[in-house]
C-alpha cells in the first residue's frame, strides 16, 4: 500500500497540474491580501493592526477547498482520460487498492497545496504590515485556527474529489456535474424541500460549515464528519463501479 501511495505522489510530481494549481492559488491568495488591505479601515472595517494577520491570511481558505476538490477529481479522472488506468491496473489488478491509495495521496496533496498557499499569503501579509511598521505575532491562536481549518477543508475536499472522480470517470462530466451540483442542484433542492433545516445537511453546506469564518448551521466538527461521510460514500460507490467496469 505504501508503494502505491508513493506512486501516486510520483504521478503528482511529474505533471504540471499540481504546480499550476499551486501558482494559481498563490496568485489568488495575494489578491485576497491586496483586497483585504484595501478594505481595512474603510466602511467600519477595523484598520490594519497586529491583529490583522489571521483575517488577511484567511482570504483563500474557501477556494483552497475548491482547489483540493479539483485536484482529487482531475487526479482520478485523468487516469481514464489519458488511458493510464490500463497500466495502473496491470501493475495493481486489485483496483480497490488503487482507489484507496488515491484517497490517501490526494487529501495529503490538497493539504500541501493549502500549506504552500497560506505560507505565500502569510509572507505577503507580514511583509506588508512590516512596511507599515506593524509586527504581528505568528503565535496568534486565531492564526492557528485559520491554518487548521484550511488544511481540514482541503484534505476533506481532496477526498470528495477522488470519490466523485471514481464515480463519474469522465473528466468533463465530473467537472461540469460538480459545478452544476453546487451552483444549481443544491439550490433547487433547498427550495423544493422548502426546509432550510434540511439544507444544512447538503455537501456544500457541510463544506461551508468548515471553512466559513462565521460557521454554517452545523458546527465545524459536525460539518467535517458529514463531509468525510459524503467522501467515503462517494468513494465506496465509485470503487464498486471501478472494480466492475471493463477497461477497454
Amino acid at each position, binding site marked *: 500500500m505504501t508503494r502505491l501511495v*508513493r*506512486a501516486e505522489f*510520483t504521478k503528482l510530481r511529474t505533471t504540471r497540474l499540481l504546480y499550476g494549481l499551486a501558482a494559481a492559488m498563490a496568485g489568488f491568495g495575494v489578491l485576497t491580501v491586496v483586497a483585504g488591505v484595501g478594505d481595512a479601515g474603510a466602511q467600519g472595517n477595523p484598520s490594519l493592526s497586529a491583529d490583522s494577520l489571521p483575517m488577511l491570511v484567511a482570504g483563500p481558505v474557501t477556494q483552497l477547498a475548491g482547489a483540493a476538490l479539483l485536484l482529487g477529481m482531475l487526479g482520478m479522472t485523468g487516469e481514464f482520460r*489519458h488511458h493510464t488506468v*490500463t497500466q495502473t*491496473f*496491470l*501493475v495493481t*489488478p486489485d483496483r480497490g487498492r488503487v482507489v484507496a491509495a488515491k484517497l490517501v495521496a490526494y487529501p495529503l496533496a490538497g493539504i500541501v497545496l493549502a500549506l504552500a498557499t497560506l505560507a505565500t499569503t502569510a509572507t505577503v501579509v507580514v511583509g506588508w504590515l512590516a512596511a507599515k511598521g506593524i509586527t504581528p505575532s505568528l503565535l496568534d491562536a486565531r492564526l492557528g485556527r485559520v491554518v487548521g481549518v484550511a488544511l481540514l477543508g482541503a484534505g476533506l475536499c481532496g477526498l470528495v474529489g477522488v470519490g466523485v472522480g471514481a464515480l463519474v470517470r469522465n473528466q468533463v462530466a465530473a467537472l461540469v456535474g460538480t459545478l452544476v451540483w453546487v451552483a444549481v442542484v443544491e439550490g433547487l433542492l433547498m427550495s423544493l424541500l422548502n426546509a432550510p433545516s434540511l439544507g444544512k445537511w447538503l455537501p456544500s453546506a457541510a463544506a461551508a460549515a468548515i471553512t466559513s469564518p462565521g460557521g454554517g448551521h452545523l458546527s465545524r466538527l459536525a460539518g467535517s464528519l458529514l463531509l468525510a461521510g459524503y467522501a467515503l460514500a462517494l468513494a465506496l460507490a465509485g470503487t464498486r463501479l471501478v472494480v466492475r467496469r471493463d477497461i*477497454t
Partner: protein
Amino acid sequence: MAAITIEGLTKRFGEVVAVHDLSFEVDQGTVVGFLGPNGAGKTTTLRMLLGLVTPTSGTARIDGRPYRALVDPVRHVGAVLEASSFHPGRSARNHLRVVATAAGLPLARVDQVLEQVGLAAAARRRVGGFSLGMRQRLGLAAALLGDPQVLILDEPANGLDPEGVHWLRGLLRHLADQGRTVLVSSHVLAEVAQTVDQVVIIAGGRLVTQSTLAALTARTEQLVWVRTPQAEALRPLLAAQGIQADPDGGDQLIAVGTTTEAVGQTAAAAGIVLYEMRAERSNLEDVFLQLTSQQGVRS
C-alpha cells in the same frame, strides 16, 4: 506446461459477441502469433487475459492463475496494449518511474529498459511529443520493467516504420531465445511470420486454427494461372479431372493444386486455345486470408 491457458472464453458487449467460446494454450518458452483480421476479438481476448475486461463466461489463466490473482503480476507478465496510454505531460522516464514505484521495482531498472528499447536519448522528453513508434517502444519498456517470463503484446508493430519492425523482430527473437513465452497479436501474418513458432488464428471471435507455422506453410498450394478466351468451357473439363478452377475475372482462371502439364493436356484434348499460363504458389498470407474469410462467411 502451458504458460497461458484460455478455456471457453466468451465476451458479450450487449448484443455483440466479441469473443465466442475461445480455447487455446500457449506453451512455456514458445512465441505464438495471435492473428486475425481487425475486429476479430484479439484485443478483447488479451484484455480478458490481463484482467482488464471481465469475461461473460470461461477463464483465462497465466501460469495457472487468473491475472488478478497473480502476486506481483509485473514480475510475471509484461503487457503492451494500446500505444496511447501515457500522460502527455509526463516524460518517458517519469512514466516508467511511476510503474516501477507502484510495482516495487528498483528505479535503476528504468534506465536499463529505456536503453534496451532505444529510448535513452528521449528519456526526459514529454511523451506528448512522441511519435507512434516511440510510444510503442515506451510501452515495450514498461512491459520489460519487471523482467517477466511471459510477454503479451497487442499489435506492437502498429506505427513502427520498416526499421522499427525489423528492430521489433530482433527484440522478440532475443526474448524468445532467453526462454520467455511471447503471445503477440497482429492482423498481418507477414509481420510475425519470421518470429513465431506457432499461430493461433481467430475470426469473428472464434478460433479458426491453432497450428505450427510449418503446418500452415504446408497448406500453401500449387496454383496454375490460365488466360484463355474459352474460360467457361475449360472450367467443367478441369472439374471432370478433379481439378478445382476459380474464375479470376474475364478470361482468366486459377486452377488449384495442379500443374501446368495437367491443365495444358486438358485444354489441348478439348481443342481449347491458351494465351497465357504460369505456375504459382500461394503464400502464407493467402492461406491466412482464406482461413479467416471462410470463418467470416460461416459466422
